[in-house]
């Protein structure tokens, strides 16, 4: 599991670079890029910090990944987790950050 950063949508603001607990993201020609994809912990800090939803999270094939990617769209207290399935379908799970886990 790791992340990919979309070159087209990245605005080069550097917030993900600042946030990554593994110092794993660098800036290349004005765009953020993950330096060692295998060393990502999957903590999603970069997804939460990105103001334009340019970071996508995916599972490695060794973890059962089959092509889906996940990103976050922020709306005030709500995180809309968008899962893009390989055939184009998009599933959305919205989590209100003001709600505690039920379990």
């Amino acid at each position: 599991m790791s992340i990919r950063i979309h070159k087209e949508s990245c605005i080069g603001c550097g917030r993900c670079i600042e946030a990554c607990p593994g110092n794993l993201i660098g800036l290349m020609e004005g765009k953020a890029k993950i330096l060692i994809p295998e060393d990502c912990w999957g903590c999603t800090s970069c997804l939460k910090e990105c103001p334009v939803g340019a970071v996508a999270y995916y599972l490695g094939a060794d973890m059962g990944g089959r092509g889906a990617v996940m990103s976050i769209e922020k709306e005030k207290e709500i995180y809309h987790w968008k899962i893009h399935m390989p055939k184009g379908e998009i599933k959305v799970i919205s989590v209100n950050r003001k709600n505690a886990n039920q379990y």
Partner: protein
Amino acid sequence: MGDVKLVTKTIRTDVLIIGGGTAGCYAAIRLGEASVGRILLVEKANIRRSGCLAAGVNALNAYISKGHVPRDYVEYARTDGEGIVREDLLLTMSERLNHVTEDLEKRGLVILKDEKGEYVTRGWRNVKINGENIKPLLAEGVEAQKKVEVLNHVNITDLKTKEVDGEKRVIGAVGFSVREPYVYEIQAEAVLMATGGAAGLYRPNNPGFSRHKMWYSPFNTGAGFAMGFEAGAEMTTFENRFVALRCKDTIAPTGTIAQGVGAKQVNARGEVYETTYGITTPQRIYGTVEENRKGNGPCYLDTKGITKTAEEDLLKAYLNMAPAQTLKWIESGKGPSDEGVEIEGTEPYVVGGHTASGFWVDTNRMTTIPGLFAAGDVAGGSPQKYVTGALAEGEIAAESIVRYLREKGRKKVAADFFSQEKAYARHFAAEDSGYTWQDLEEAMQKVMDEYAGGIATDYRYNESRLALAKEKIRGLQELIREAPAGDMFDLLHIYEVRERLTVCRILIEHLLARKETRWHIFGENADHPKKSEEFEIYVNSRLEKGKIQILRRPLVKGESYEHQDP
């Protein structure tokens, strides 16, 4: 190899905090409020999202609910730790669990409450929260303190000590920026070690592309253990390793499913086996390992048939703490209501917030080196700390540092130049030996897995295997000294492997010294498969003249402990 010109920067501060995770941030807040002069918090990433809470946390697992007292928590931890715990440390921590929980809520943490405004508990010591933003909340608390300065993206590698009035005490630490060619030499009157525990010692569950998808933060390398040990500090109970029971592949938590929706552990035949082996964490893993050994695997948490509402709640709960699991459920097209969740035990970790490994400290959380304190996952003797226990220890250490500085007075130690630059520069000057830090890390994990009781041997080891592990780890320690670096990022990784190798070396000695099996799974000693009364002691260690000395210390009873010569 790399064309890097290092520049040294010298900083003087009153208190240096190494590591800006849970304990380090909280200590910084409390020290900032106490007016003890300048406080410098150094973190190798950024305190907003660093350490083991980078991803958030699903619950606060240490809280004293109504009808219970701190002593109950001490007894719970003592039973779970098979007696090898420190009563003084557990009690002083437990007394603060509720007050730090309330403080977290004031800082903005969402905690589930009932209609009367009381916290909703899961069991008697667990409160339900939304812990996704716990780290940014702590970081904001630190940033609000005017006397606290934060140095992000700087990796501390060595402590500096000096004889002052006939006693060796800590006088500072050295490190480097992970981005720019700067070396930092920091002089301090007191140092708090808060670097967390050690992950990545053993070959992980996912050894390939997803090698960092592990339970504990892969960026927690045991740096504090290594630095303290090299400086001569005493360590305790490393042999009490921690292994977690997790969802297979995603290494996501299982407690949320087991306790949240009441799913039972079943084998491939659908037989419930948790009733046979018991339901403490090691028993749950032991049962799973045994069922697999008998050929009854794979093992599952039986969630099949849970309601669609429960399934939706689980999908959301995992997004707040382990999003890979939610993605896996959606991507496979099969949610927890359709099929059980496969489970497995992780590779072993050394982590003082869960088991009792770490620095040997007195009740004030001072280590055996005067002026050096330890809190959180790096401090030993006090298991089951979790988040709130780490906060409590950060607070205790902060108060002790304030007292220490007042009582000791501030003697200005001669401003020695630490001359660390050369040690780092040798890696840039090193010829390409053919072995990268990645090769050496992989080799270390293989050795530990096969010879020191990893997943490959169902956590079993014996003296013959440990002797081989010792020899091979020593060989790797020599190679890492010559590892070539092209830039500061390489240097960071070389030092991380170096720290892990030191932790492995200490761990092997501890595994050899405890000639019994006290904690199933956490340590399966094949030469001594039973518990022995002779080992109702702490196994401690320290470096003396380049050699590891093992010390057997009697159990500490009572509410206070001061350091004593062995």
